[in-house]
């Protein structure tokens, strides 16, 4: 499978999931302040990475899209709920090429919409009972419970680091934070859930922990790199926004460990300033320093190593499965991560 075919399949799975999300949003009042807004972020068209992984993992294990559809809807709804809350917490300005919800409405409205999306994401799991049987539905419920708690813990770490202006973080701290904040809900658990559904509960989901972690970490690092070097229209968020937000990315942690004392003190002062008072000039200077100390190259290589390790894990746990489009789809995603030239 080539990259174009992989992207087209991802788009198809994303579209099917979006159709499912629409089905689970009640057609009732209050629309203006709630239900219309619930559909706002999903309708902007995300990558559909999480449902894509879940459906493909299900397919590779012999299942069908129809069996994974409710779980895929839950994953995508939760992701969009997280995004709305993240945007408020990070004071982000744009999301998927449009202004963030809390900037066009109020912060209070945006938080409430995120809350409702979290609640709505539970109902497809209830429907899993009729689709997959009680036992499997319960196992998937626990998977989702785990991914939500891990994501909130990871988010707490990152927000806490910013609150305390932590500038002494190591790569291990970063890897732990993204495991919790991103990897469980973006890759590990979607692959686990898909495999459980496709195999009708017969597979050991722990087999996919490393694969999902390596993939998720590579994905997160690449996403952070795109925030610095990507094109705003393609990335969908303001370029350099992570520096303005003071996000503890691998590049920032690398820079803090490599730069001179004087430069470190300058960065610490910048990160100690309230977000809205930080200037683009200072952010650009930090980006220059990241280039100077090759923090971005370091991050690119790190993500490549992790994607390579993911490929090895993929071959270990998927090679014995019958060849299928979904299996090829997963392999192509990992190869794309390895060969990415931004």
């Amino acid at each position, binding site marked *: 499978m080539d990259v174009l075919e992989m992207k087209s399949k991802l788009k198809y799975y994303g579209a099917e999931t979006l159709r499912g999300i629409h089905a689970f949003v009640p057609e009732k009042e209050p629309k203006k302040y709630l239900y219309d807004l619930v559909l706002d972020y999903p309708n902007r068209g995300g990558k559909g990475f999480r449902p894509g992984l879940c459906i493909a993992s299900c397919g590779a294990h012999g299942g*069908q899209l129809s069996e994974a559809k409710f779980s895929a809807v839950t994953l995508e709804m939760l992701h969009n709920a997280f995004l709305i809350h993240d945007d408020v917490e990070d004071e982000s300005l744009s999301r998927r090429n449009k202004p963030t919800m809390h900037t066009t409405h109020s912060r209070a409205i945006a938080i409430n919409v995120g809350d409702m999306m979290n609640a709505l994401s539970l109902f497809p799991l209830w429907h899993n009972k009729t689709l997959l*049987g009680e036992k499997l539905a319960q196992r998937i419920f626990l998977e989702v419970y785990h991914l939500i708690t891990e994501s909130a813990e990871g988010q707490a770490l990152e927000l806490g680091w910013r609150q305390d202006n932590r500038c002494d973080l190591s790569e291990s701290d970063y890897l732990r934070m993204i495991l919790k904040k991103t990897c469980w809900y973006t890759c590990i658990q979607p692959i686990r859930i898909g495999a459980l559904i496709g195999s009708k509960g017969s597979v050991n989901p722990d087999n996919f922990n490393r694969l999902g972690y390596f993939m998720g970490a590579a994905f997160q690092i690449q996403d952070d790199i795109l925030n610095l070097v990507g094109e705003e229209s393609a990335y969908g968020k303001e370029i350099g926004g992570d520096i303005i937000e003071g996000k503890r990315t691998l590049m920032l942690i690398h820079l803090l460990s*490599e730069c001179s004392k004087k430069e470190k003190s300058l960065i610490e002062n910048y990160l100690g300033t309230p977000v809205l008072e930080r200037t683009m000039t200072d952010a650009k200077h930090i980006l220059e320093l990241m280039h100077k*100390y090759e923090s971005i190259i370091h991050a690119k290589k790190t993500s490549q*190593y992790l994607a390579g390790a993911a490929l090895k894990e993929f071959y270990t746990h998927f090679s014995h499965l019958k060849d299928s489009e979904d299996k090829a789809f997963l392999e192509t995603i990992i190869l794309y991560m390895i060969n990415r030239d931004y």
Partner: protein
Amino acid sequence: MPNRKNSKKNTSGASQSKKDKNESWIDPDRVVNKAQNIVNSAVNILEEEIAAGILAAKNIEKKLIDVDELRSNPDALMNRIRRDSHEVLDLVIDGFASITSQMNEVLETLKNETKSASKKNKSTPKSASKPSNGNVIFLEPEHPLKAGETTTLNLSLFNDSENETSTIELRKSDFLGSGSQKIGLRAIKIEPKTVQLKPQEEKDVNISINLPKNSIVGYYNAFLTDVNNPKIRILLALEVVD
């Protein structure tokens, strides 16, 4: 990270450390080392986090199930007994599901055997069979069905007795899928419900299947038996597709 301290101390300019680092990316041994370090570090973190998660979950379980407190509190004890009874019931239901699944496998085998038998005798139409003692009649629509679709199968019943009248009244079962999914027996309609056959008489019975709109994709089997003669056994098989 190798060389981190050296490059950190070199604050006079980044050019020398840049050169070192560029070389370090090219040197295959160092690249492998770096990659191994990162991956090992990630693996350790993952294992630590999973262990911490298991410990936390066990602690929650411990808090939720306090044996001494349970004993001293009759209401809580009763609740616990009720919950455990439910769990036992769940186990029984699981056992029943497992038996049903095994029965399904037997039915599948029977279906395959009947299929191969019907291949050998091509003159027998697939949807019109005559019951006789000890055989299972296999009925299957010509094509897979979609949820919400209806189909009708025709069954010819023949009384091979020379002098006795026979009354046949077919009893239905649910359609059971390969997993735990099923389609209720209300999806099957038999017309006429009761058939009286004089000696050497043949009559047709129409079996219509009206699939619910929420039917799940998969293979299903249902079983029909005569209330008066359990040796008359009919297997209905169908596939639901998207």
